[in-house]
Every structure is written in C-alpha cells, then in structure tokens.
C-alpha cells in the first residue's frame, strides 16, 4: 500500500542574515498521515511550518504539495492550493462571531462556498467542535479553548489537503487535553493529512505514527514515533548530555 | 558635470531636512507631515533676521535651531504624547500621528499665510560665483552644502559616540527592549522629535540662502523628505544622506535637461522605483 505523497520538502533552508533557522531539511508526508514535528525551543519548527504555509519564503530548497510547487508562493496562493493552519498564539477574527470566523475559512479556499451552503457547512463544523448553539457568540467573548476550537474549525472549513497545527494543544488543562487529543484523532481518522508541531509528548506518542525531530534548524530524526522518542540523539537534544 | 555638482550641493541641504524627519519617524515613531512647516518657518525667521536685523544666516542658524528644538519638544509633549499613550499598537499610532500632524500642517500653514501672504520671498546672501573645477556655482549654495555637512557630521558624532545618541538609536530600533536597559523611552522620543525639528530648521535656514520660498511650499518639502527617508531606509542615517544626494542630482538633471516644472514628477518617479524594487530602501534592512 503506497500512500500518495501529499507534501514533499526537499532541502528546505531559511536563513535570516547569519542565523540559519532551517538547515537543509527534507521529509515527505503521505496521504492520511499524522506527523509530529518536534524539537526543543528554537529548533526551527514554527519556521518550518511558516515555510510550508507560505508565510516565509525559503532561502533555498523546494516544497511541493501533491506535486505542485508551493515554496516561494504567497500565503493566499498556498492556501488556495490546499493548506490550512492554526497559529501558535490563537488568531481569531476579533470583530466577528464564531460562525463568521469559520465561514471565513470556507469562502476563499479550494471549496469556495458562499451564502447558505457556507453557513450550513460552518454550523456543522462548529457542532463537531462541541460549539453548537454558540454560533452567534462573538469570539472576543469566548474562552481561550473555545477560540482554539473556532480556529481549528476555520482551518477545517477550507477542506485542506494538509492541515498544519502549531502547538494546538498548548495551554490546555488535563481534561481539555484529553478532549483535544480525541478531536485530533477523529480528524485524522477521517483521512485528513496533518502535521502537528507539539511539545506535549503524551499527545505525540498517542497520536503520531511518525515523527520528524528538529534541533537548531537541522533534522536529526525521522521515523516511527516510539523509536524516535527513544533515540539518544533526540533525548540529548531535549535534555542535554547527562540523560542520553 | 555641472548638473552633478549642483545637484550634490542641493542634496546636502535636502539631507539635513531628511535627517530631521528620519529622527522623528525612526526614533519618535511620528510620521510628521508638518515637518515642512518647520522648514518654511525657519526660512521666514532667517529672512527676517537677515533683512531686518542684518544677522548672517549661518549665525541665525545657531539661534534658530534651539528655538526649533524647544517648539518641537512642546509639540511632541502637548500634541503627540497623548496619541502615543492612546495607541494600542504601532499601526494605530502611525494613523493617528499622520492625521494629527496633518491638521497641524494646516494650522501652521494657515498662520504663516495670514502673516506673510502667498508671496515669494528671497534674499541675497553670498550670491557671488564660486569656482569648482572651473565652473561657477553660487557661493551661497557651496556654503550651505559645507554647513550641512558640518551639521550632519555633528549629528553622526552625537548618534554614534555619545550615550544620549546611542539611546536615540536604541529607541529607533526597539522601544520595548530599550526600556529594559533603563532608557527613558518617553523622554528620548521627545528628545529625538525635538532634535529632528531642529535639524529640519537648520536645513530650512540654509535653504533660504539660495532658494525662493513662500508660505505654502511646506508640503512639497515634506514630500521630498519623506521620499528621501524611504529611499534611504527608515531610520538609517547614512542611507538618508545617500538618498538625498541622489534626489538632488536627479532633480537638477530633470530641471536642466527636461523642464523645471517637472521636479516633483522626478521625485515621484524615484519614489515609485524604490517602492517597486526596494521598498526597504537602498541601505535598509529587509523585514522578514
């Protein structure tokens, strides 16, 4: 069973003057996979995500989505080709309600919905997030976890080929965390291809079939979650030499 | 060749004006659309000092600069600081400061029009020819250029070799971090704004020695200063100087070779080129 390759990153590099944030990283993501992109703080994970979503342009290297080159394209073009994301610090549209936020994801992306179909679709997604009945609540009045849910619904509303989650589980209390993990698992089970940047190791272990580990811009491991997390290099990157 | 030298001489004075705006926008984060009015006011004061009191404009500059400093400090403290406090982010401050200084522009220009009318003024100061490489140039232009270079050099020394100057540069780069190293950002911003005003006033004084001015030309000079600041890269003193020279030469070339009525068009052409190809400026740092 060879899954189609949804994302292929080939020697991606991003330099900010003298600082090399992403150093010749290469990996592939197959259809339906749930990949964990992990590494200590400052390892370049979010930069890598920004390269994929088009927020940053790579200094060199190539990134392709289902064969189409996306590296160097503007974020709106990348979004329309089929990538949606959440942000490390949640970015909801503060002047709008929950349903307007989610609709925003569906109107301009691949599916280009509008009017009643868009609204119904958004309503369905909000229900999935456990927010039914609260469609007309302004997001500015919602709790952090609810805002995260709205942001995730907005990303899903675009029916993306690849979903990028930037530390979506951060800042959740233990019970919220369990619910969050279940939610991501559901989304993955539907066949959605996901890359999640995370620090919560339990989540990575439970959810991800494969992990890509970065440290100081370089990829130091790429393989099955269990083996990667036991890899001495990976442990050394997180905890320092003494515990390797 | 003559064009290049004349343009460079002009560029020297432009540089001084642009440096004033650079300080105000780069360090105090105020897009001061009324900058040109400070310039015009300085022209009028220099004119009056020379024609009514017989004071040499170069000496006049020494008198005008501190007054301009004080007035601009007051403008910042009374008019602009409330906006700085009110703004939730840099974008809002920019919009508010543009609108406020826009209103100030009108107010000041209106007052000057009331006082002096719309007539053109000029005075003769060192209007003899001065030979450079065999070609004659107005001595007043040469002296203005030399004076501008001296003032700019003093500024450079101040910014790069004194504590207060380094504080100004720090605030221009990152006010939040500056606060962390015990720089009084509010005071330094006011100082930078006032200093910028003084520099523009110096430029105006020097300009008045060879340029025919009137009360409504402030906006045009604000435009030139803005274009120079953007061409040189916001906050970059050396870039602004280089850009000023380029502007001066281009303007003079267009005026001599095509038509003197198209100088603003020449300015804009440069502006558009910069915006299309290098919006961060000639020497500016590109933002990620």
């Amino acid at each position, binding site marked *: 069973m060879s899954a189609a390759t949804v994302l292929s990153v080939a020697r991606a590099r991003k330099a900010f003057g003298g600082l090399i944030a992403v150093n010749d990283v290469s990996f592939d993501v197959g259809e339906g996979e749930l990949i964990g992109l992990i590494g200590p703080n400052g390892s370049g994970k979010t930069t890598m995500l920004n390269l994929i979503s088009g*927020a940053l342009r790579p200094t060199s290297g190539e990134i392709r989505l289902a064969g189409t080159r996306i590296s160097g394209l*503007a974020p*709106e073009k990348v*979004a*329309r080709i089929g990538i*949606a*994301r959440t*942000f490390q610090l949640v*970015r909801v*549209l*503060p*002047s*709008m*309600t929950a349903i307007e936020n989610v609709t*925003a*994801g569906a*109107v*301009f*992306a691949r599916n280009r919905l*509008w*009017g009643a179909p868009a609204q119904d679709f958004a309503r369905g997604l909000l229900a999935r997030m456990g927010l039914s009945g609260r469609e*007309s609540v*302004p997001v500015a*009045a919602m709790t952090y976890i609810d805002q995260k849910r709205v942001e995730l619904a*907005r990303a899903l509303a*675009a029916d993306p080929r690849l979903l990028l989650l930037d530390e979506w589980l951060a800042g959740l209390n233990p019970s919220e965390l369990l619910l969050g993990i279940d939610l991501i698992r559901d989304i993955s089970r539907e066949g959605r291809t996901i890359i999640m940047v995370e620090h919560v190791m339990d989540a990575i272990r439970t959810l991800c079939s494969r992990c890509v580990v970065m440290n100081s811009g370089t990829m130091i491991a790429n393989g099955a979650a269990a083996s990667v997390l036991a890899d001495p290099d990976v442990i050394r990157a997180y905890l320092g030499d003494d515990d390797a | 060749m003559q064009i290049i030298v004349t343009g460079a001489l002009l560029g020297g004075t432009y540089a001084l004006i642009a440096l004033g705006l650079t300080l105000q926008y780069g360090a105090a984060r105020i*897009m001061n*659309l009324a900058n040109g009015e400070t310039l015009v006011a300085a022209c009028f004061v220099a004119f009056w000092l020379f024609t009514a009191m017989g004071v040499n404009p170069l000496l006049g500059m020494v008198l005008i600069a501190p007054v301009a400093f004080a007035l601009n400090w007051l403008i910042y403290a009374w*008019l602009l600081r409330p*906006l700085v406090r009110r703004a939730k982010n840099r*974008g809002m401050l*920019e*919009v508010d400061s*543009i*609108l*406020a200084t*826009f*209103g*100030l522009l*009108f*107010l000041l*220009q*209106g007052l000057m*029009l*009331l006082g002096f009318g719309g007539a053109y003024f000029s005075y003769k100061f060192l209007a003899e020819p001065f030979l450079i490489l065999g070609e004659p140039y107005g001595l007043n232009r040469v002296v203005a250029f030399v004076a501008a270079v001296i003032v700019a050099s003093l500024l450079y020394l101040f910014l790069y070799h004194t504590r207060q100057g380094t504080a100004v540069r720090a605030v221009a780069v990152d006010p939040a971090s500056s606060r962390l190293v015990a720089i009084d950002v509010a005071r330094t911003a006011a100082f930078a704004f006032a200093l910028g005003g003084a520099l523009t006033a110096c430029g105006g004084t020097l300009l008045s020695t060879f340029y025919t001015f009137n009360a409504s030309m402030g*906006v*045009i000079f*604000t*435009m030139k200063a*803005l274009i120079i600041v*953007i061409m040189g890269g916001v906050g970059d003193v050396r870039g602004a100087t280089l850009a000023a020279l380029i502007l001066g030469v281009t303007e003079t070339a267009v005026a001599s070779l095509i*038509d003197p*009525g*198209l100088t*603003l*068009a020449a*300015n*804009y052409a440069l*502006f558009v080129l910069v*915006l299309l190809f290098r919006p961060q400026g000639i020497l500016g740092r590109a933002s990620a």
Partner: protein
Amino acid sequence: MMRLRRDELMVAGGGIAAIALLSLLPLFSDGFVLSFGVNLMLYVAMCTAWTLFSGPTRLVSLASAGFFGVGTYSVALGLDFLPFPVLIAIAAFVSAALAGLVGAATLRLSGVYFVIFTLGLAELIRQVVAWSQSRFAHKMGLYVFTDFTERDLYWMLLALTTLVFGVGWLINRSRLGFALRIIGDDETVARHVGIATARAKIVLFMASGAFLGIAGAIVAPRYAYIEPQAAFNPMISFLVVIMALLGGTRRLWGPLVGVIPFTIVMEFITARFPNHSSVVIGITFLAIVYLLPDGITGRIEGLRDRIRHRAAARNGIEAPEAIEEKAA
C-alpha cells in the same frame, strides 16, 4: 449572500424615500439654496466614495483632488469632441486606472507608504498637467461651455451619491466585503484563508477613485474655465478627509453626518474670515483626532452600546451581543 433582513429592508426603504425627497429640492428653490445643495451633494458623493475605501482599510487617502481633477479635465479636454455621458465614462475609467497604478505600487506594502504617496499625488498630477498645457496647448486654461443648469448638476450628483451607496451596499454583502472585514481584523489570517489582500484593496481603491473622477466630471461645467490650480486644488483632498472623519468612517453613511454641519460652518467662515480657512480646518482636524477619533457616528454608536450594556446589566442578564451586520 443572505436574504435581506428586515432591518436592511427598512434602511433600504428609508434610503429610497430620502432620495425621492431630495430630488424634489430643485423644484422648490433656486439661487443660493440650490447652489448650496449642489455643494452639499458634491461633497456627500465624494466623502462617501472616499469612505468606501478608507473606511474599511483604515488607510487615509490624501489624493482625492487628483481623481477629481482627472475627471474635470476629462470633460474639459473632450467636450468639443465627445458627448457628455461618454466623457463621464472616460473620467471613471482614467481615474480607476490611476487608482490602480497607485494601488499596485503602494498597497502591497505597509500602509504608511500609501498615505505618503497620496499626499503629493494631486500636486504631481497638477504639475504634469500644467506642464503639458504650457508645452502643447500654450495656454493654461480650458473653456467648458454646456447647457447644464445647476438643477441638472444637482440631479446628476444625487444619482452619483445613490450609485456610491448602492455599490457600497452591494460590496458589503459580497465576498469582497467579507474579505475586507477579515483584512481589517487580521491581515495575516486573511492571507492564510486564501484572500488576495493586495488585490482586494486595489480593486476597492479603483472603485473609490472612479467615483471621485465622476464627481469631478459632473461639476466641470460649473467652472466654465478650468485651470490646473482649481481642478487639482489640494483643499479638495483635505476637505473630503476632514468631513468624512468628522462624520465617522466606520459606517458608509458616516460622512453624510459630517458633510452637512461642516459645509455650513465653512460657508460661514469663508464668508466672514476668508483668510482664516486653513487655520480653522487645522484646528477642526486636531479636534477630531483628539476628541472624535471615530467621528460623530462612532461616538453615537459608542453611547448607544454603553446604554444597552448598562440596561442589560441592570436587568441582571448578559449584555446582548452587538451582532450588527455592517450595513451600508
């Protein structure tokens, strides 16, 4: 997008009634009142067209006189050769093209570049026009003689204003309007949901510029003699901005509220103290920036929200969410 809501229908109905009433004005008055009405209608049209762009994007355009002058000159140059409606179309087209160029150069970058560019734009066009007039036509002014009366101008301007409001209302209900609201909230998110932000802004600016050009074309017959200084008068740019800000730019009908009192005050000032107009404008501007940052309509809506919240709190229930669709 959605079916018309009841309150939208009421606003539309009210608008149509107002237009009908206003169109009757020339039948009942002549001379000064009609002339004043033309002035008023001109600035309502221009300020609304200005707010069409600068309201949602929060980008202050100081170039209104540039588009206005382009419109005036389209008529002045072509009146001997082409029928008036065609000239109006040309004015709209050229203004839109100009706006497109300005937008393409500046709207991909941070907003301050746009503002600076527009600051000198009208002056630039004036210089170019003056230069070409002296170079090719060897005279500075152009004569415009038509059969149009003040009444005709009034009705044309009323039609233009209606058109601007209509287009604004349509945009609000469309994808473009939604996109602009998103851009206003968070431009990064806008781009990541697939909105071509620069293009949206440019298209909107072109629409705004076109309407300003049409306004300039319509009132060209009023001058009889067109000179660059008058057609590209910087005062036009500033008056448009100040009246729009006074009324409030968060709503498309905000400027309407600002134009009326300001025009009245300005008539008074220019009659009594003709040389003080710049000073008055400057002070008014500063007053608006400090005291009425969201204009009169913003202040009124703020008060209304506060009263609503206070009433709800007193009743011990949660304050009703302010889910107003941003109606035209």
